């Protein structure tokens, strides 16, 4: 994937130089291994900061909300789907964007990589094709990327961007063989008390920092429900029921909109796999409404239209 870096820089330089865009949003190398930072480039001479590798895990659509400039942006499959949602939800206009599409081969799970290094400190990271190398004090390991993909990348069905102005490489084959919802299905067969304790346990470490909410491009409400006070839907302390309420409502706000980009899980400081909430919604949306979010600009979002023949079996 590193091969995209040069192309991104070249195209960003031209786009900025020719004045086709005012700013360019991409990733730059972070100060910590396995960590890249979203960056906004304003001048053609700064484009060499830009980079694409297997650690580009945050969703850049998050940085488009209500911007007014002409923006160049890189987008892989999930990012492009979130851009579609942003356009549909009037958070940005299509003609403001120049999208460099990236057929994506998946990003890596930094926690799994650290585990493979026995949680030793990493000092360096580099990648080459299907392998990447991590270095620390007195050790070096080369690992296979496919074994360290993030769980959402492993089951991703839309690796190629769905919307772009130019594609920076040949489309990659889509991975249609895997079942993205096998874990959800497993839990569905459990009795309620098992499900409840599973989710209670899942969020038990939550510190209510709202990183999951804020990393999500879907969460742009001017006032979040957690901050509403008349009425107050959810308490502010770390009471387990309040924390659970927060997670349920946060997930539900993503119903029919979530692209399973995994930014929420990636940013969590205590590694809560909160995609377990949104995946259930994605599964039901797919099964009940044949819906996957952000695939096209042609249809309205799931909750913004209806069919008279919609699923009705749960209603007396």
């Amino acid at each position, binding site marked *: 994937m590193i091969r995209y870096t040069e192309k991104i820089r070249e195209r960003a330089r031209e786009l900025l130089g020719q004045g086709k865009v005012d700013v360019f949003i991409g990733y730059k190398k972070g100060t910590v291994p396995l960590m890249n930072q979203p960056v906004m480039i304003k001048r053609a001479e700064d484009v060499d900061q830009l980079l694409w590798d297997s650690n580009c895990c945050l969703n850049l659509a998050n940085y488009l909300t209500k911007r007014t400039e002409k923006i160049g942006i890189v987008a892989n499959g999930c990012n492009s789907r979130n851009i579609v949602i942003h356009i549909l939800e009037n958070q940005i206009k299509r003609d403001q964007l120049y999208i460099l599409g990236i057929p994506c081969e998946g990003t890596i799970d930094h926690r799994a990589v650290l585990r493979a290094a026995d949680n030793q*400190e990493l000092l360096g990271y580099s990648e080459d094709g299907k392998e990447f190398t991590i270095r620390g004090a007195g050790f070096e390991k080369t690992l296979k990327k496919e074994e360290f993909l993030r769980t959402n990348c492993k089951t991703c069905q839309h690796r190629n961007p769905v919307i772009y102005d130019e594609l920076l490489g040949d489309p990659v084959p889509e991975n249609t063989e895997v079942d993205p919802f096998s874990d959800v299905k497993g839990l569905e067969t459990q009795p309620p008390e098992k499900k409840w304790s599973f989710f209670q346990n899942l969020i038990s470490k939550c*510190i209510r920092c709202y990183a999951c909410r804020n990393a999500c491009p879907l969460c742009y409400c001017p006032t979040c429900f957690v901050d509403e006070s008349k009425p107050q839907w959810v308490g502010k302390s770390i009471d387990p029921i309040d924390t659970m309420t927060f997670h349920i409502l946060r997930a539900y706000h993503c119903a029919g909109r979530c692209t399973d980009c995994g930014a929420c899980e990636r940013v969590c400081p205590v590694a809560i796999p909160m995609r377990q909430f949104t995946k259930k919604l994605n599964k039901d949306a797919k099964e009940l409404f044949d819906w996957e979010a952000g695939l096209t600009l042609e249809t309205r979002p799931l909750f913004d239209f209806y069919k008279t023949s919609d699923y009705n079996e749960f209603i007396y």
Partner: protein
Amino acid sequence: MGTSKVLKKDEWLKVIEDLRKGYKVFVPTKEGDFHFFREYKDGIRPDLNFSNTRLSPKGLIYPQSERMFECPLSKDQEGAFILKESPKDFGPQLVVGIRPCDAYGFLIVKRNFDNPQYRDPWWVRRYESTTFVGLGCNEPCPTCFCNAAAGGPFGEEGLDLLMWDLGDEYLIKPITEKGSNLLAKVEGKEAQDGEIKEAESLKKESQKKMDFSFDITPLKNKAQLELFNEPYWEDVAFSCINCGTCTYLCPTCWCFDIQDEVYKNHCDRIRNWDSCMFPLFTLHGSGHNPREKKFQRVRQRFMHKLKYYVDKYGNGIQCSGCGRCVRYCPVNIDIRNVIGLMCG
């Protein structure tokens, strides 16, 4: 302060276990991939083979959510509508394995919670009833900069005892009278010159591994408004998602919010950590928000830590160099780079 002692690792852990009789003991323990400080109860396995805990131990003195006052709300109950202090446990606590940066962090927070103008009763009582047994860092993390921000990987400030990991043994050095009294009761051989030298060299080796440094003079000398109006804040803030990770993980962030919660006929006044990253933090009743924009909030965090605190207390920066915010910031905003910008 008395002499240092050397104990085999398992002997020392046994001592800690026995201390549970007199103290509520907190130890680092591994849960999933990371370490947390937890009360040492049966079933908890202390693990001192760690770099640092994911969350700072500030919550042991200053819980994330803490009931302050309460009162009944029906007229027929005694004391209705009159807030009374909630019962709290201020029994002796022992924190074992706290890193020097985090112990130093408490001294920073102390300037806010325990000063001539204001004394936070709960923070002070909990802090005073706690004994801190530190563990020096033989291997500082690449994100650590305690050498520049605080007392370094074997810094003693804020600790009562400091442990050196000598391989099979711990050298335990008393630092305060509290620590000295505790150590005096522990059976163990006195540290010999060789061991003390080994400890000294571990400290030097460790310090050598830390490469970040800065000079605080520009932070002191530049005018607040000059720093406030610098053009770089928008760029620093661009990637910020305004979550509370940096502030909640930080050992030195002390801001809180107070909420009243009603359950049936009972009212609780609860204090929760708050974060300057959240828009609600500064939202006025009128609807006006003086820090409405993201970059203003990011600027506030850094200006507070690196300028306002410096000016107000004259005691360094409000940061102990633990590196948590550097490492766990979801978007890699690195305070070391910001220090560089502000000093530049």
